[in-house]
C-alpha cells in the first residue's frame, strides 16, 4: 500500500516538475539568482567571499524551494486541479510528500550549483556527503514551509506575500551575512527559532576550516531534521483537516 502511494506521489512530483519547474524562466532564474548573489558579494569584497558561500547556499535553497512551492497548491486550488487530485485514490500524506518533493528537488539543484561553483572556484573543503545531506534537509524543510503557506492561504498573491514574511527575516537573522557568533544575544535567541540558522551553521562547519560555526554539527543536523518533521506534521494536519478548503 505504501509502495503504491509513494509511486503516486512520484507521478505527481514529476508532473509538477514538468508543469511548473522545468520551464525556461524558472530554470534561468534558478541559475541566475545564485550566480548574481555570488558575483555581488565577490565584487563587494573578493577576499571575504569564502565566508559568505555557506550563507549564499542557504539563501539559494530557501528561495529555490519556497518560491513556487508556496503558490503551487493555491494556484491549483484556483484552477480546480487540486479537486482532480483529491478525487484520485491518494492519501493526505501522499499529497504532502508529492507537493513537497518538487520544491525540494529544485532547492537541492540550485543549492548544489552554488556549492559546486564555490568549491571549484574558491577551493572549499570537500565534505560532499555532509554538505549534500545538509542541503537536502534544508530543501525538504523549506519546501514543506512552502506547502504549509500554500495550504493556509486562499489566494496566490496572499501566499507570495506570506512567504516573504518568513523568508526576508531569515535572510537577515540566520547568520547568512554575519556569523551568529558576532550577533547580539537577543538576535542569537531569535535566530535559534529559525531553520535557516542551522543549515547555514552546518555548512560553515563542513565547508570552511575555522568558519566561525556557533553550534556543534550534530545540533545543526538534529535541529534541521526536527524542523522538517514539525513542518511535515503541520502540512499533514492542514491537509487532513482543511481538505475541503482545497476545493473551490
Amino acid at each position: 500500500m505504501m509502495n503504491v502511494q509513494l509511486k503516486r506521489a512520484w507521478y505527481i512530483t514529476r508532473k509538477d516538475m514538468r508543469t511548473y519547474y522545468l520551464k525556461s524562466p524558472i530554470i534561468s532564474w534558478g541559475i541566475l539568482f545564485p550566480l548574481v548573489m555570488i558575483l555581488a558579494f565577490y565584487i563587494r569584497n573578493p577576499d571575504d567571499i569564502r565566508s559568505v558561500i555557506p550563507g549564499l547556499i542557504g539563501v539559494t535553497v530557501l528561495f529555490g524551494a519556497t518560491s513556487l512551492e508556496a503558490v503551487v497548491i493555491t494556484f491549483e486550488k484556483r484552477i480546480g486541479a487540486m479537486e482532480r487530485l483529491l478525487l484520485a485514490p491518494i492519501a493526505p500524506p501522499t499529497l504532502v510528500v508529492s507537493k513537497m518533493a518538487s520544491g525540494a528537488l529544485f532547492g537541492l539543484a540550485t543549492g548544489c550549483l552554488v556549492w559546486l561553483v564555490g568549491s571549484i572556484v574558491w577551493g572549499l573543503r570537500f565534505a560532499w556527503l555532509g554538505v549534500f545531506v545538509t542541503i537536502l534537509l534544508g530543501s525538504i524543510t523549506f519546501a514543506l514551509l512552502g506547502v504549509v503557506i500554500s495550504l493556509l492561504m486562499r489566494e496566490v498573491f496572499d501566499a507570495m506575500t506570506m512567504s516573504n514574511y518568513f523568508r526576508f527575516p531569515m535572510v537577515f537573522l540566520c547568520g547568512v551575512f554575519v556569523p551568529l557568533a558576532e550577533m547580539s544575544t537577543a538576535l542569537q535567541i531569535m535566530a535559534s527559532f529559525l531553520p535557516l540558522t542551522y543549515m547555514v551553521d552546518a555548512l560553515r562547519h563542513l565547508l570552511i576550516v575555522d568558519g566561525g560555526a556557533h553550534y556543534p554539527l550534530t545540533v545543526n543536523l538534529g535541529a534541521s531534521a526536527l524542523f522538517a518533521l514539525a513542518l511535515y506534521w503541520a502540512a499533514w494536519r492542514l491537509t487532513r483537516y482543511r481538505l475541503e478548503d482545497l476545493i473551490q
Partner: protein
Amino acid sequence: MRESMASIETEGLTRYYDGLCAVDHLDLTVESGELFAFLGPNGAGKTTTIRMLTGLIQPTKGTALIDGLNIRTHPLEVKARVGVVPERSNLYGELGARDNLIFMAQLYGLPRRQWRPRADELLQRVRLSERAETPFRALSRGMKRRLTIAAALVHHPTILFLDEPTTGLDVQSARSLRSMIQDLRAEGVTIFLTTHLIGEAERLCDRVGIIMEGKLVIVDTPSALRRRYQDDDLAVEVVTPSPSEALRRDLEASEKITVISSKTNSLRLGVHSLDEDLREICAIMHQHHAPIEEIRTVNVSLEDAFVKLTGMDVEILEQEKSSNGQGGRK
C-alpha cells in the same frame, strides 16, 4: 446499514455548511447499471451530494455505501471505483490531451504497459485522437468536456458521476455528450448525473430524483412522475401573449381547470373534457381580453410534474444556471 449490492445507497446523508443545511437526510438507492439523474435548481444540494459520495467532503451526519463500501471507512477504495466529471473541466492546462490521460492512469495505478494504449483508446472514443498533443488549455469547451469525461473513465470505473455534464455546451456538443452517456450506460456503467435541464433528465434517465433545498422531494421514473402528476384526463396548451396573473388566478379558480404551468406566451392547463372545459377557458380568456392564438392538446411532461412538485418556474431555473454556469452553495 445492511450490506447491499446496489451501486449507491445512502442513509440519512446530511451536510451542513456554517450552520446551513445543504443536504438534509438523503435516503437514496441507485441500482447497478442504472442511469439516475438528480434534478434541481442552483444550491439545491446536487453538487454537495456528489462531493460526499465521491469522498471529496465528509458528511455531517449519515452515511453512504458505494459498491458496498462505506465512504467514511474506505475513502480510497471508493475513489478507486468511481469516475467523476466535475462541473468545471479541470485537467492540467499545460499538459497535452494524451499526457493528461496518462497522468490519470498513473494516479489510478494502471500498469505501465496500459498507460498509452488506454489513453489512445479513450482519445479515439471521445474523438480527440487528432488533438492528442494539444494542450488542454487550447481545446474548445466541448473538447475539454469530452476529455474530462475520458479522464474519468481511464481506470474503468463501475460508477460514473457527472455534475451538470452539458452546461455551457453548444447543441451539437451536448447531443454528442448525451449519446456518449447512453453508450456508457449500455456498457453497464452506473451513471449518476446532476442536471437542471428537465428535458435532458427525461430523455436520458431511468429514474429521476428531484431535490429542493437539500431535501429529496421525490424519486421515480420520468413516466411514473408524469402519470403521478397528471390529475386530469387531458392537458392543453393555450398560446396567448403575456398571460396576466389575474387570468391565471381566474383559471385556477375554476373547478374544472388546473393551471399546470405558465410561460411568457402560453399556459398549460389540465382539463377533464375538451368540449365543456374549452368553452370555459375561452370565456375566462375573453373576460380578460386575452387573445387566443392557438390551442393544442399536449402530453403532460416531466417539466409539468417538476413545476407542480416544486412550484418553480422552469424558465427561471434554466436561465439562472446558464447565466452563471456554476452551481452549489459552497
